[in-house]
């Protein structure tokens, strides 16, 4: 809220008067104006302070807070609450209101992932507009009038859209809060790490909120070339597996039927001695398009070192929605194509499967994939193998058949780059440390390579790997990991269109929104 004024309009033929600094005298409007609803004009005078402005701001704050409950100690929004910030900046600190506050429904269950507290609502209607215009599922609206205006869901409906959690992000107060994050941690303890989502090919930009070595929540990060400001709930909530019970924390070697913990040195030694017993065409490598460019590059190097021809990644498909979720659920398919220099890195999976079944392939190295659940292998196939080594995050069905299980790092635990479906190179950042003995995957691959060659690797950091990529693959030319930046760099034109951005463009073209 500011005070505005314009210089008096001169009569025809009259020159405007100016003071010694060349400014025209301002005729101030005696009432304050809402600054966000006005556009700046030439010669306009604006007062952002002064008795009138400050008194008015204080008055507005007092009205906003009249019915607002004193919930800050229990409110999840405290610390990132716009109203709290405004109150600290412009409010009076003490309430003069002595009457009963208006009571409204609290702790309302309006959807599977969202909790509503109507007393905290300041009726900005951002959530209503988001559900209507962006998510395309208009289920929110106001009932009643005046002080009793209440946000609610349409009768018989629930706020169950896959984009519902975005309403909690845009809610300036704590009226809409996430069930998943509810009462988990106060936001001022959280460390924010910018990264990207790995649940589908879109590569939504995210912020990982951590405290200590625990992820508490994930929120979308603005990137107008990828995800605008939004992200789907299903992707946002898919991080709890990182510190689940099934997480592997040390290398495991099979001792007859049982898996026992071992050290990295011993595991690598076992790998080096065992793999030498097989001819190159008896070995197959299955990688994953969920690996970063750096990991894929080292995987390719491992393949070349062993001279293996049987090599494939695992395709992973689902339904695309009309907004952000892509049909390709692998986050780095484009990157895999670039790094492996193949048009279809998924093609030879079936051949490997039949090779294993016919016992032509006797040793299988699988990285970051659960072969039974995702790649169509059966338990019987895997038990036919003479030597089966697998890297994974979690204890899964196929890991049970592995001779050697190597624990890797989750997406929030590593640094690296990926290329999304529209050809944008983006960077993952490390928000937390891998648990106990689990290792960053690129280090694991590097050590596997030097275990085979018997030479010490010259790669000491992820930057070294990326430097090697830039020197061999032309599209990465002249880049470094830090040059990628927070917003990513478009390195290839794939022609893939992200539906949500197309919607936005259409609405902009139709004049519905500015921006």
């Amino acid at each position, binding site marked *: 809220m500011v005070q505005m004024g314009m210089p008096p309009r001169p009569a025809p033929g009259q020159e405007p008067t100016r003071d010694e600094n060349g400014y025209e005298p301002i005729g101030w409007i005696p009432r304050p104006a809402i600054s966000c609803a006005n556009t700046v004009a030439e010669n306009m005078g604006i007062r952002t302070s002064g008795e009138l402005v400050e008194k008015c701001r204080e008055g507005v704050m007092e009205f906003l807070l009249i019915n607002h409950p004193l919930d800050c*100690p229990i409110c999840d929004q405290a610390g990132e609450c716009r109203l709290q910030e405004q109150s600290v900046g412009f409010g009076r600190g003490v309430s003069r209101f002595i009457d009963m506050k208006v009571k409204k429904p*609290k702790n309302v269950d309006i959807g599977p992932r969202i909790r509503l507290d109507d007393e905290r609502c300041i009726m900005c209607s951002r959530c209503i507009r988001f559900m209507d215009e962006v998510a395309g599922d208009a289920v929110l609206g106001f009932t009643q009038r005046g002080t009793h205006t209440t946000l609610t869901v349409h009768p018989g409906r629930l706020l169950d859209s896959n984009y519902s959690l975005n309403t909690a992000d845009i809610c300036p107060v704590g009226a809409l809060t996430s069930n998943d994050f509810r009462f988990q*941690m106060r936001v*001022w303890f959280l460390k924010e790490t910018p990264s990207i989502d790995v649940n589908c090919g879109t590569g939504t930009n995210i912020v990982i909120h951590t405290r200590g070595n625990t992820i508490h929540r994930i929120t979308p990060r603005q990137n107008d070339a990828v995800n605008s400001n939004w992200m789907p709930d299903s992707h946002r909530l898919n991080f709890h597996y990182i510190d689940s019970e099934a997480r592997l924390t040390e290398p495991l070697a099979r001792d007859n039927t049982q898996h026992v913990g071992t050290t990295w040195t011993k595991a690598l030694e076992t790998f080096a001695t065992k793999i030498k017993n097989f001819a190159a065409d008896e070995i197959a490598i299955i990688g994953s398009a969920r690996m970063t460019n750096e990991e894929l590059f080292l995987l390719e190097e491992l393949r070349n070192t062993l001279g293996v021809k049987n090599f494939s990644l695992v395709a992973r498909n689902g339904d695309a929605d009309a907004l952000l979720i892509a049909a390709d659920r692998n986050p780095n398919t484009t990157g895999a194509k670039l790094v492996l220099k193949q048009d279809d890195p998924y093609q030879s999976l079936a051949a490997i499967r039949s090779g294993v079944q016919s016992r032509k392939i006797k040793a299988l190295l699988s990285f970051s994939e659960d072969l039974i659940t995702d790649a169509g292998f059966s338990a019987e196939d895997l038990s036919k193998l003479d030597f089966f080594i697998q890297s994974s995050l979690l204890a899964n069905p196929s890991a049970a058949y592995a001779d050697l299980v190597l624990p890797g790092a989750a997406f929030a635990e590593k640094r690296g780059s990926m290329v999304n479906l529209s050809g944008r190179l983006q960077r993952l950042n490390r928000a937390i440390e891998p648990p106990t003995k689990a290792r960053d995957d690129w280090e694991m691959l590097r050590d596997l390579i030097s275990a085979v060659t018997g030479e010490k690797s010259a790669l000491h950091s992820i930057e070294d790997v990326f430097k090697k990529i830039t020197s061999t693959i032309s599209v990465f030319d002249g880049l470094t990991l830090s040059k990628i930046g927070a917003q990513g760099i478009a390195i290839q034109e794939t022609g893939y269109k992200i539906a949500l951005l197309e919607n936005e463009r259409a609405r902009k073209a139709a004049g519905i929104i500015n921006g």
Partner: protein
Amino acid sequence: MPTIKLTRPKLDAGEKIYLGAIFKGFFLTLSHAIKSLRGKSAGAEGLASSGLGITMQFPEQRWDDHMPEYYRGAPTLVTDEQGRERCVSCQLCEFICPPKAIKITPSEIPSNDPWAKVEKRPLEFDIDMIRCIYCGMCEEVCPEQAIYLRKDYLITGTSRDQMVHNKEKLYEIGGVRVGLVNKWNELK
């Protein structure tokens, strides 16, 4: 800023030998020793001295009766006259605590609880008394009048685990405190 020239005081020949000053010092320390032996040290009475110097002989003589009003002992959690635990686990004390002695795990109050409208309470509330420096910042910052420094000063234990006060222990020491602001009691 004015410049002040400081000069060392001029010493005469006698002072320059220093022996006089040293003997004066001997006299001072000795007179202190004698006073101390006679139980006449300055401040001995106020500190309930045991008779030698100003020191109290601890296990036999206790400080309890001489504790000043403003004494800051162990931080504790309190309940109010309705038996409600006042802490809503806002974690401000955890944030402000200079030595990071406080650790809180928040939780939601189940809907069948009479105080379900408060919504939030601590599941675990640990104060590591080895870390605590008795600064009272937690009491100062608490928006719910839930944490108070009581006069307990004998915090001992034989292991590190024993020195961590958990929620039960904190409520046990804290007890009930009446006359606090009851903002959650309003019609709701």
